[in-house]
């Protein structure tokens, strides 16, 4: 909403229907002309919504806002010009988030009303119960009755001294209410800022704790290997954290590019960049798996919620497609078929790898069970050693499974990239990033909650 908004069509006016496009903040000079229209404002139904078409295309609900420039009030202002807090409530409730552009001095009450209502665009009777207004219902009702009594003809009567006192009282009350709301707003904003700071601090702490925790975990495996495993796992964690930061940066750039409606060529460069960056991650993971396959499989390098959904050391590629869901619409028939095929083949591949892993676990268990090793005794040492060697060999295939799973993820992403247009691919990448960052945020919230419970 750029600047003052126009009124377009008002409903519920008895007598004079005022359909005009004029600013909501006419000079006081204009007020006298339009009093006729305003006097009937009180009979406006609370639920009238006046919508305004806005050059930026944003749907703005605009209310009839009487020019309540209380700083310029004069004694001889008509009663009809005064909008009760109730009506002000209706007015402000219609404003959307672009309220910042409303002239502040005259709209202080209106602003406050809006803030308390958030984005609810409909004014209803409940607005006037907002505590910041400090005007009780009786007053409002009485005032409404007063207003109802005033018709076009009674404007003259209102100009009498008696009417003036009443209006002065009303004005004072409104000023008070406005002042109180301003103070409350200030306090609220301060509270928001301080809790934001606190949240940032907590996130930093959390990060530090998690890294420490992972170092501890990775050093768990045996004394001799401790240093090795420690370095491997913690160095991977550090590399992954770095990758994540770079990824966020790229995604931000992509988002900005989409918002700025850049050309297809530029967009394609960005999209290709993100996909290539994913390849970097898979390379990182394969190196990490060489150093410590169990660290990769355990998922300790990722957040708890992500770990919960983890499959063979990473996300499920079939899950990726489900996340995208409808966000890729509109798709051509060819694309729909390709996506379906991709979904099906990724599920089949996942199942195959899962079954392979199960077979691995079973065979490992078998080779270590007493049945195959026989009764333990000195004579069976060689048997034991050979069985251990077999088990070691089997464990070696874990890295291969992890590798295949990562390949599957990589292939699925590449195929998605092939199927979709540049714009669709860009949107898809954003959606995927949203999903994973929400998982991470959920993890942080959960950890904070647990922490608070422990220390509460």
């Amino acid at each position, binding site marked *: 909403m750029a600047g003052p908004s126009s009124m377009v069509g008002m409903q519920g006016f008895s007598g004079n229907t005022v359909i005009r496009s004029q600013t909501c903040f006419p000079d006081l000079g204009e007020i006298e002309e339009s009093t006729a229209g305003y006097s009937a404002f009180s009979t406006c139904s609370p639920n009238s919504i006046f919508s305004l078409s806005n050059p930026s295309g944003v749907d703005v609900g605009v209310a009839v806002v009487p020019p309540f420039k209380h700083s310029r009030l004069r004694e001889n202002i008509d009663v009809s010009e005064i909008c009760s807090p109730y009506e002000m409530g209706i007015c402000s409730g219609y404003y959307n988030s672009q309220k910042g552009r409303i002239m502040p001095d005259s709209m202080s009450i209106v602003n406050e009303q809006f803030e308390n209502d958030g984005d609810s665009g409909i004014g209803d009777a409940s607005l006037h119960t907002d505590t910041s207004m400090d005007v009780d219902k009786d007053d409002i009702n009485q005032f409404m009755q007063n207003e109802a009594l005033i018709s076009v003809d009674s404007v003259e009567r209102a100009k009498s001294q008696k009417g003036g006192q009443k209006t002065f009282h009303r004005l004072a009350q409104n000023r008070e209410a406005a002042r109180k709301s301003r103070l409350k707003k200030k306090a609220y904003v301060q509270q928001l800022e301080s809790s934001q700071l606190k949240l940032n601090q907590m996130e930093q702490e959390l990060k530090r704790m998690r890294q420490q925790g992972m170092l501890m975990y990775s050093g768990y495996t045996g004394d001799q290997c401790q240093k090795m495993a420690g370095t491997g796992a913690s160095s991977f964690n550090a590399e992954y954290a770095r990758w994540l930061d770079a990824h966020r940066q790229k995604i931000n750039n992509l988002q900005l590019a989409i918002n700025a409606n850049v050309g297809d060529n530029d967009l394609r460069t960005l999209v290709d960049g993100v996909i290539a960056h994913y390849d970097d991650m898979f390379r990182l993971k394969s190196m990490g798996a060489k150093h410590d396959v169990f660290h990769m499989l355990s998922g300790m390098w990722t957040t708890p919620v992500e770990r919960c959904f983890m499959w063979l050391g990473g996300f499920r590629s079939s899950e990726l497609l489900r996340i995208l869901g409808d966000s890729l619409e509109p798709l051509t028939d060819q694309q729909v078929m390709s996506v379906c095929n991709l979904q099906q*083949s990724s599920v089949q591949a996942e*199942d*195959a790898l899962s079954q*392979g892993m199960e077979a691995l676990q079973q065979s490992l268990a078998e080779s270590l069970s007493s049945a195959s090793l026989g009764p333990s005794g000195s004579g069976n040492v060689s048997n034991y050693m050979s069985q251990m060697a077999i088990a070691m060999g089997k464990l070696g295939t874990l890295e291969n499974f992890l590798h295949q799973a990562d390949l599957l993820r990589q292939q699925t992403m590449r*195929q998605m990239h092939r199927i979709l247009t540049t714009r669709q691919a860009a949107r898809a990448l954003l959606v995927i990033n949203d999903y994973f960052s929400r998982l991470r945020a959920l993890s942080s919230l959960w950890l904070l909650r647990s922490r608070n419970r422990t220390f509460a």
Partner: protein
Amino acid sequence: MQYRTTSTSEAWGAYMARNSGGGGGGGGGGGGGTAAGAMGGGSDPLERIERLASENAVVIFSISSCCMCHAIKRLFCGMGVNPTVYELDEEARGGKDIEKALMRLLATPSPLPVVFIGGKLVGSMDRVMASHINGSLVPLLKEAGALWL
């Protein structure tokens, strides 16, 4: 899934009968007697691989204890394909040679499992998965007659 050993007389006999055509090859192993020598110790393992691969639509060279081989078998069965599997560790003879030949063919120390479709080499697990994801596996299978739907 059909498990075959390369030296069963039945397989060899069937092969000979099918492939000898007009030649007199039928007398060689057709009777099924000399099963052990049928595959021929002297024949080039690569040739043997080629022959075995062209016998069936989908041929998998595998090791019975290998879990990745298990995974690849499950993949094909899950698609409704009936692959022919040769467990090289269960071969009476020549299994090691075939494995070595495959090692050379794929230039990797652990080639298995290896998949041939329609007599053509597809590759190991990663190649099979990649071709499945990019949609080229199913047409290949259909072309080889392993899939009908």
